[in-house]
Protein backbone atom coordinates (compact mmCIF):
# COMPACT_ATOMS: atom_id res chain seq x y z
CA UNK A 1 0.00 0.00 0.00
CA UNK A 2 0.97 3.60 -0.54
CA UNK A 3 0.20 6.08 2.22
CA UNK A 4 1.09 9.61 3.22
CA UNK A 5 2.95 9.50 6.53
CA UNK A 6 3.67 12.89 8.11
CA UNK A 7 3.30 14.68 4.77
CA UNK A 8 5.65 12.23 2.98
CA UNK A 9 4.63 9.47 0.52
CA UNK A 10 5.65 6.01 1.76
CA UNK A 11 5.14 2.52 0.37
CA UNK A 12 4.74 -0.71 2.36
CA UNK A 13 4.50 -4.32 1.22
CA UNK A 14 1.54 -4.89 3.54
CA UNK A 15 -2.01 -4.40 2.26
CA UNK A 16 -3.04 -2.95 5.62
CA UNK A 17 -1.31 -2.19 8.90
CA UNK A 18 -2.49 -1.39 12.39
CA UNK A 19 -1.02 1.70 14.03
CA UNK A 20 1.08 -0.55 16.26
CA UNK A 21 2.26 -2.43 13.16
CA UNK A 22 3.19 0.84 11.47
CA UNK A 23 5.00 2.12 14.59
CA UNK A 24 7.06 -1.05 14.84
CA UNK A 25 7.88 -1.15 11.10
CA UNK A 26 9.04 2.46 11.23
CA UNK A 27 10.89 1.72 14.50
CA UNK A 28 9.00 4.58 16.16
CA UNK A 29 9.49 3.90 19.86
CA UNK A 30 8.11 7.19 21.17
CA UNK A 31 5.87 6.98 24.19
CA UNK A 32 3.85 10.15 23.83
CA UNK A 33 2.05 10.42 20.50
CA UNK A 34 -0.90 11.98 18.78
CA UNK A 35 -2.11 9.88 15.83
CA UNK A 36 -4.62 10.76 13.12
CA UNK A 37 -5.79 8.73 10.16
CA UNK A 38 -7.38 10.90 7.45
CA UNK A 39 -7.89 13.63 10.02
CA UNK A 40 -9.64 11.39 12.59
CA UNK A 41 -8.01 11.09 16.00
CA UNK A 42 -6.85 7.59 17.00
CA UNK A 43 -6.51 7.14 20.76
CA UNK A 44 -3.80 5.02 22.34
CA UNK A 45 -6.14 2.14 23.20
CA UNK A 46 -7.05 1.90 19.48
CA UNK A 47 -3.48 1.55 18.15
CA UNK A 48 -3.87 -2.26 18.00
CA UNK A 49 -7.18 -2.15 16.12
CA UNK A 50 -7.11 1.03 13.98
CA UNK A 51 -6.26 0.05 10.42
CA UNK A 52 -4.22 2.00 7.89
CA UNK A 53 -5.16 1.31 4.27
CA UNK A 54 -3.86 2.21 0.82
CA UNK A 55 -4.24 5.93 0.16
CA UNK A 56 -4.60 6.92 3.81
CA UNK A 57 -3.12 10.13 5.18
CA UNK A 58 -1.49 9.34 8.54
CA UNK A 59 -0.10 11.83 11.04
CA UNK A 60 2.08 10.59 13.89
CA UNK A 61 3.10 13.45 16.11
CA UNK A 62 5.92 12.75 18.56
CA UNK A 63 5.42 14.88 21.65
CA UNK A 64 8.59 16.14 23.28
CA UNK A 65 8.70 18.21 26.47
CA UNK A 66 9.73 21.84 26.39
CA UNK A 67 8.04 25.17 26.20
Amino acid at each position, binding site marked *: MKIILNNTAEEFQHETLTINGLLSLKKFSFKMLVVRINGSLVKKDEYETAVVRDGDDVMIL*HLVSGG
Partner: protein
Amino acid sequence: MTSDEVRERLKSRSVGIAGCGGLGSNCAVALARTGIGTLVIADHDTVSESNLNRQYYFLSQVGEPKVSALKDVIHRIDPAIRVISYKARLDPEKINLYFRDCDVLVEAFDRADQKQMLIEAALSLFPGKPLVVGLGMAGWGKNESIRFRKSGNIYICGDEISEISDQLPPLAPRVGIVANMQANTVLEILMQT
Protein backbone atom coordinates in the same frame (compact mmCIF):
# COMPACT_ATOMS: atom_id res chain seq x y z
CA MET B 1 -1.27 46.38 3.78
CA THR B 2 -0.03 48.81 6.46
CA SER B 3 0.56 47.88 10.08
CA ASP B 4 -2.56 49.87 11.06
CA GLU B 5 -4.65 48.01 8.48
CA VAL B 6 -3.41 44.72 9.94
CA ARG B 7 -4.45 45.89 13.43
CA GLU B 8 -7.86 46.84 12.12
CA ARG B 9 -8.32 43.35 10.64
CA LEU B 10 -7.24 41.66 13.89
CA LYS B 11 -9.31 43.81 16.26
CA SER B 12 -12.32 41.52 16.11
CA ARG B 13 -10.32 38.29 16.39
CA SER B 14 -9.68 36.10 19.41
CA VAL B 15 -6.76 33.77 20.12
CA GLY B 16 -6.57 31.19 22.92
CA ILE B 17 -3.21 30.42 24.53
CA ALA B 18 -3.02 27.28 26.65
CA GLY B 19 -0.03 27.68 28.95
CA CYS B 20 1.81 30.92 29.82
CA GLY B 21 5.40 29.67 30.09
CA GLY B 22 8.15 30.21 27.53
CA LEU B 23 5.98 29.58 24.49
CA GLY B 24 2.76 31.15 25.75
CA SER B 25 4.17 34.36 27.23
CA ASN B 26 6.35 35.15 24.21
CA CYS B 27 3.62 34.23 21.72
CA ALA B 28 1.06 36.38 23.58
CA VAL B 29 3.38 39.39 23.54
CA ALA B 30 4.03 39.07 19.80
CA LEU B 31 0.29 38.83 19.13
CA ALA B 32 -0.41 41.78 21.46
CA ARG B 33 2.09 43.94 19.58
CA THR B 34 0.44 42.98 16.30
CA GLY B 35 -2.98 44.07 17.51
CA ILE B 36 -5.04 40.95 18.26
CA GLY B 37 -8.35 42.09 19.77
CA THR B 38 -8.79 39.38 22.40
CA LEU B 39 -6.34 37.00 24.05
CA VAL B 40 -7.65 34.16 26.22
CA ILE B 41 -4.81 32.93 28.44
CA ALA B 42 -4.76 30.04 30.91
CA ASP B 43 -2.10 28.69 33.28
CA HIS B 44 -2.07 27.37 36.87
CA ASP B 45 1.50 28.38 37.73
CA THR B 46 3.20 31.37 39.37
CA VAL B 47 6.30 33.16 38.08
CA SER B 48 9.54 31.82 39.54
CA GLU B 49 13.11 33.05 39.15
CA SER B 50 14.02 30.02 37.04
CA ASN B 51 11.40 31.08 34.47
CA LEU B 52 13.26 34.32 33.69
CA ASN B 53 15.76 32.54 31.39
CA ARG B 54 13.10 32.39 28.67
CA GLN B 55 9.67 33.56 29.78
CA TYR B 56 8.37 37.10 29.23
CA TYR B 57 8.33 38.07 32.89
CA PHE B 58 10.40 40.32 35.16
CA LEU B 59 12.16 39.83 38.48
CA SER B 60 9.58 42.06 40.18
CA GLN B 61 6.84 39.64 39.09
CA VAL B 62 8.27 36.56 40.83
CA GLY B 63 5.55 34.97 42.96
CA GLU B 64 2.65 36.39 40.92
CA PRO B 65 0.31 34.08 39.03
CA LYS B 66 1.60 33.91 35.45
CA VAL B 67 -1.79 34.84 34.00
CA SER B 68 -1.94 38.12 35.98
CA ALA B 69 1.72 38.90 35.29
CA LEU B 70 1.17 38.31 31.57
CA LYS B 71 -1.99 40.39 31.54
CA ASP B 72 0.01 43.27 33.06
CA VAL B 73 2.77 42.89 30.46
CA ILE B 74 0.22 42.89 27.63
CA HIS B 75 -1.54 45.95 29.01
CA ARG B 76 1.76 47.80 29.36
CA ILE B 77 2.11 47.29 25.61
CA ASP B 78 -1.50 48.01 24.69
CA PRO B 79 -4.22 48.63 27.27
CA ALA B 80 -6.91 48.25 24.60
CA ILE B 81 -6.35 44.52 24.21
CA ARG B 82 -9.02 42.42 25.90
CA VAL B 83 -7.30 39.77 28.03
CA ILE B 84 -9.45 36.99 29.48
CA SER B 85 -7.34 35.06 31.99
CA TYR B 86 -7.90 31.83 33.86
CA LYS B 87 -5.61 30.66 36.65
CA ALA B 88 -6.35 26.98 36.34
CA ARG B 89 -4.87 23.60 35.53
CA LEU B 90 -6.42 22.72 32.19
CA ASP B 91 -8.45 19.59 31.55
CA PRO B 92 -10.75 18.79 28.60
CA GLU B 93 -13.78 20.33 30.32
CA LYS B 94 -11.97 23.61 31.01
CA ILE B 95 -10.43 23.64 27.54
CA ASN B 96 -13.94 23.50 26.11
CA LEU B 97 -15.22 26.20 28.44
CA TYR B 98 -12.34 28.65 27.96
CA PHE B 99 -11.37 28.24 24.32
CA ARG B 100 -14.44 27.19 22.33
CA ASP B 101 -15.07 30.74 21.02
CA CYS B 102 -11.45 31.44 20.01
CA ASP B 103 -10.61 31.67 16.30
CA VAL B 104 -7.28 29.88 16.82
CA LEU B 105 -5.84 27.88 19.72
CA VAL B 106 -2.13 27.91 20.59
CA GLU B 107 -0.66 24.91 22.43
CA ALA B 108 2.00 26.33 24.73
CA PHE B 109 2.55 23.70 27.38
CA ASP B 110 5.86 22.46 28.70
CA ARG B 111 5.35 18.75 29.43
CA ALA B 112 4.76 16.19 26.68
CA ASP B 113 1.82 14.54 28.48
CA GLN B 114 0.11 17.92 28.82
CA LYS B 115 0.68 18.65 25.13
CA GLN B 116 -0.89 15.30 24.29
CA MET B 117 -3.89 15.98 26.52
CA LEU B 118 -4.46 19.40 24.99
CA ILE B 119 -4.03 18.32 21.37
CA GLU B 120 -6.33 15.30 21.77
CA ALA B 121 -8.94 17.35 23.64
CA ALA B 122 -8.85 20.15 21.06
CA LEU B 123 -9.12 17.72 18.13
CA SER B 124 -12.15 16.04 19.76
CA LEU B 125 -13.85 19.23 20.99
CA PHE B 126 -13.10 21.59 18.10
CA PRO B 127 -12.57 19.45 14.97
CA GLY B 128 -11.98 22.30 12.50
CA LYS B 129 -10.34 24.91 14.72
CA PRO B 130 -6.75 25.77 13.79
CA LEU B 131 -4.39 24.44 16.47
CA VAL B 132 -0.82 25.80 16.55
CA VAL B 133 1.58 23.47 18.36
CA GLY B 134 5.14 24.13 19.61
CA LEU B 135 7.24 21.02 19.53
CA GLY B 136 10.98 20.65 20.09
CA MET B 137 13.04 23.71 21.05
CA ALA B 138 15.43 22.68 23.85
CA GLY B 139 19.09 23.70 23.81
CA TRP B 140 20.80 26.29 21.61
CA GLY B 141 22.00 26.80 18.04
CA LYS B 142 20.81 24.50 15.23
CA ASN B 143 18.71 27.18 13.56
CA GLU B 144 18.44 24.95 10.50
CA SER B 145 16.58 22.24 12.43
CA ILE B 146 13.65 24.45 13.40
CA ARG B 147 10.86 23.97 10.92
CA PHE B 148 7.18 24.27 10.24
CA ARG B 149 4.64 21.85 8.86
CA LYS B 150 0.88 21.63 8.58
CA SER B 151 -1.24 18.51 8.99
CA GLY B 152 -4.91 19.27 8.41
CA ASN B 153 -5.89 21.86 11.03
CA ILE B 154 -2.72 21.27 13.10
CA TYR B 155 0.22 23.62 12.54
CA ILE B 156 3.50 22.36 13.99
CA CYS B 157 6.40 24.71 14.87
CA GLY B 158 9.74 23.42 16.17
CA ASP B 159 12.36 20.79 15.46
CA GLU B 160 10.06 17.98 16.74
CA ILE B 161 13.07 16.25 18.33
CA SER B 162 14.89 18.26 21.04
CA GLU B 163 13.50 17.23 24.39
CA ILE B 164 14.43 19.22 27.49
CA SER B 165 16.73 17.61 30.06
CA ASP B 166 19.27 18.72 32.67
CA GLN B 167 21.89 18.92 29.92
CA LEU B 168 19.54 20.42 27.32
CA PRO B 169 17.57 23.19 29.00
CA PRO B 170 14.96 25.37 27.31
CA LEU B 171 16.59 28.79 26.71
CA ALA B 172 15.29 32.16 25.56
CA PRO B 173 16.56 32.15 21.94
CA ARG B 174 15.14 28.85 20.65
CA VAL B 175 12.00 29.03 22.80
CA GLY B 176 11.49 32.58 21.54
CA ILE B 177 11.98 31.51 17.92
CA VAL B 178 9.33 28.79 18.22
CA ALA B 179 6.94 31.03 20.20
CA ASN B 180 7.25 33.71 17.53
CA MET B 181 6.78 31.11 14.78
CA GLN B 182 3.55 30.17 16.53
CA ALA B 183 2.48 33.84 16.62
CA ASN B 184 3.44 34.22 12.96
CA THR B 185 1.35 31.16 12.10
CA VAL B 186 -1.64 32.56 14.01
CA LEU B 187 -1.27 35.80 12.08
CA GLU B 188 -1.13 33.99 8.74
CA ILE B 189 -4.27 31.99 9.59
CA LEU B 190 -6.18 35.09 10.74
CA MET B 191 -5.15 37.21 7.76
CA GLN B 192 -6.43 34.50 5.40
CA THR B 193 -9.83 34.13 7.01
